[in-house]
């Protein structure tokens, strides 16, 4: 596969390490009263769609940036790639 890195252009997927569902960015609030359940759902449950999937790839043999890649799990077609840090900031994680 080839991942179109937002800064470096098309890169071989071999340079990346796959983590999984991009929802892993949305780490729950540990101080919440429902934290235990929230963390269980966050860490263990997956939509695992047959189709468009937002997922995390780490450019380990590249610039070491984490990317959020939107990829179809039935065709492997990649429709969108962005820096995970940008995505995370949009989710308000830098606050």
């Amino acid at each position, binding site marked *: 596969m080839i991942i179109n890195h937002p800064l470096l252009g098309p890169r071989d997927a071999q340079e990346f390490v796959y983590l999984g569902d991009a929802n892993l960015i949305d780490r729950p609030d*540990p101080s919440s009263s429902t934290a235990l359940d929230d*963390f269980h759902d966050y860490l263990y449950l997956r939509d695992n769609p047959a189709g468009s999937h937002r997922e*995390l790839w780490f450019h380990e043999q590249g610039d070491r940036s984490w990317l959020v890649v939107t990829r179809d799990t039935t065709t492997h077609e990649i429709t969108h790639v962005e820096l*995970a840090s940008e995505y*995370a900031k949009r989710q308000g994680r830098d*606050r």
Partner: protein
Amino acid sequence: MSGINRLDGGQIDRNNVLTFSFDGKRYSGFGGDTLVSALLANNVRLMGRSFKYHRPRGVFTAGSEEPNALVELRSGARREPNSRATVAELYEGLTAQSQNRFPSLRFDALAFNDTLASFLSSGFYYKTFMWPVAFWEKVYEPFIRRAAGLGRLSGEEDPDTYDKGFLHCDLLIVGAGPSGLAAALTAGRAGAEVILAEEDFALGGRLLAESGILTDRLASDWIEEVTAELVALPNVRLMTRTTVFGQYDHGIFGAVERVSDHIPEPQPNKPRQILWRIYSKRALLNAGATERPIPFENNDRPGIMLAGAMRAYANRWAVTAARNVVVFTNNDDGHRTARDLSEKGVDVAAVVDCRHNAPTSADFEVIEGAEVIGSRGRLGLKAVKMRFKDGSEREIACGALGVAGGWNPNVHLTCHKRGRPEWNGDISAFIPVKSEDSALRVAGAAAGIFSTHGALQSGAQGAIDALNDLGISARFPALPEAEDAPVNIAPFWYVKGGTGRAWLDLQNDVTIKDINLAHQEGFRSVEHVKRYTTLGMATDQGKTANIGALAVLADIEGKSIPEVGTTIFRPPYTPVSIGTFAGRSRGKEFRPYRLTPSHKWAAEQDAVFVEVGNWLRAQWFPLKGETHWRQSVDREVIAVRKSVGICDVTTLGKIDVQGADAAEFLNHIYCNGFAKLPVGKTRYGLILREDGMAMDDGTAARLAEDHFVITTTTANAVSAFRHMEFCRQCLWPGLDVQLISTTEAWAQFSVAGPNARKLMQKIVDTDHDITNEGFPYMACGEITICGGLRARLFRISFSGELAYEIAVPTRYGDALIRRLIEAGKEFDVVPYGTEALGVLRIEKGHAAGNELNGQSTAAMLGMGRMVSQKKDSIGRVLAGRPYLQRVDDYRLIGLLPVNLDSVILAGAHLMNVGMESCAANDQGWVTSAAYSPHIGSSIALAFLKKGDQRHGDVIRIVNPLSDGDIEAKVTSPHFIDPEGERLRV
């Protein structure tokens, strides 16, 4: 003179006579021959035996789709079983043997199976061999295994090497027949980066196999002309002997280039083959088509072959399988074979055409509305039996039969991404579907365009369309005039009636009867039929067989072929040598080595090295006279405890953590607190996974308010860094923190033992105070040594002794170890390896890989209280789950054998005294064990249920693998200096 079946003409070099041997008999052929063409020239028709019935077989095709003529090519360690003789280029001294026969090709004992055929029908083995129970492994299966299989591997290491590489192009053109050449010409002239890959050793495809299909010039002239132009174009890469075997995601194709298979052995330092991963923006498939047979009774005799192959042998290689031939056809193409052969002086006894409107010929008899219904000649065809339209029968003597059942486009590559071909009634064949991302287009016969004119035109147009996607404009080139005959075919899939066997899959011996039987037994889906009968599972993946089986199924079910369905092809297009995929990553080069800064010095000391991940580390340093590793290790351990030892600990992961928020960041990473760690101090830290289990441990040294250097275990260096980057970029992107690995940049040595300080004081520059007061336990700092070399000093200890870790730029590591050993002479300093390191840490009760195996909680490791509840760190929340907090969980303990002579083995399990040894009574297991020269016995660390409350108890250590069962006392995991006084002196 080579061969009584040699004809005039052909693209062979008659001045280049090559001698070769088959089954020990010597023959000669010409340059440009394949093994098969040369054998046919020498009147050899019998070339192999079938898989199941061991039927005598001859060549069936003229290409890589060959099911029959499989041989063991070459000899010794270079022997290659199942080599398709149809594509084996002849070279001087080539040796080949027939395979899957015993004792000889002409007489094969296992041909006995053939007489039992009716008992060996499809799937018979599922129905028997069940009694007596024990007989399967002992009697039935060994026999079946010996009878099965095809060729033999040598059993020796492959002596050749293989390369791998990457290529990039705008347009990959697969196949260099008329459409491929036209495409290459078009794209090449447009200036695009083009790769033209051809599995054959010559360019031209069917142009080489036909005569007179270009009407305004000789095909050979045009090929020459085009080749010359393409060679001259710097943007075009011509790759012959290169098979594009698979299509993968995003325009990536796998190809194998056979660099040295046409010579006896590779040149020195050169590979036998190269695996190319071709990264293409667009690709065009011009893989041509494969002819299909018309099965009839005993249609598998040596001498019976595809008509197109018969024609190819005559035109390209100037050979015929026999001097008198018959052609059996359902379309005009068969007549072309008859015409070409009779023009070359071969006696065409008859053309049997099942159509009623067959074209006539002045040169040979055409019998229309007729069928071939049988054959004679066990080891070589003697005659075929045919049936006229009025039902009367006649036998025609002939040495070869060409069968023309029409052509199937080679759609294989279009299926590799799970694309399903669709039926085209005009040519009665499956043609490719357009790939959804248009990354792969198809042209020429592969697209079902069978005329030469159509192939040329569609090839050029395909290139223009593909380049158009890329914004490259290409112009339609001037192309030769060529025959443009329409496909004139009357679908006729197999000869009906008859009681004998008609073969569909020649290699796996699948007959029409087998398909009927499978269907009768309820195997109706195409996939079921394939799997039950093994149809299409042979080395040719059923290239000449599958369509016939579909036709049989269609007739049984009264459906059309597309209604019955199709089967898609998997990579590779043709089988690829396993060595090719491995490339140079073999033997010692399987993975790169990582060498420590003291490696050269350690090698000079005759150190014994051990693989730790990709690292090579000194395991121990044997002295003269030491005959057993234990002597060396014990000596090293004792020396550390008594005086001082030095160990290269460079392999530990080192990560530089800087930034205004570095401390807060580490507070998230480690379960214990770091915010308040003073500058100049080091602290042990435990990293949990988010699921609350221990991930890794190490130390963090605070060199400045905004600067930490942390260590990870050797094994987790990479994954821990990845994890920290995830936390930095994805979870806390607002923190001002920067990470970089410095593992490689620093050579780090542990100097441990009561005399460690004395030794260090000899190399640390005097303006640095490293007394216990000036540089206490867990201190860290940046210093200089040996008169000005910048270094880092950490007062940390893995051994439990007074110890320092000293780090210098890696290039000075070699000099430093030599200096330390020199300076340490007065203290009898010893270098110690990973074994002694292990003993020392077990004596001290430090957890390592065997304890930190991803299945341990902080509590199990005795660090439950370290998990700070005052802050948010990774893993804190889920570590609070009931099962991770249960009181009867395992706890790390020490074990001391009751009988000091008994040996404890890591991996043994723990049982209570007097209880039966079984899973239900399992109390835990030994994680690490060693002989402790300090204690004078075997000692161990273990996880024991409620172990923290059972110090002093006696427990059994059982090792059922070797019937071990000894008693041991449960102790604290700290065998030496539990109070940690030695660390602080």
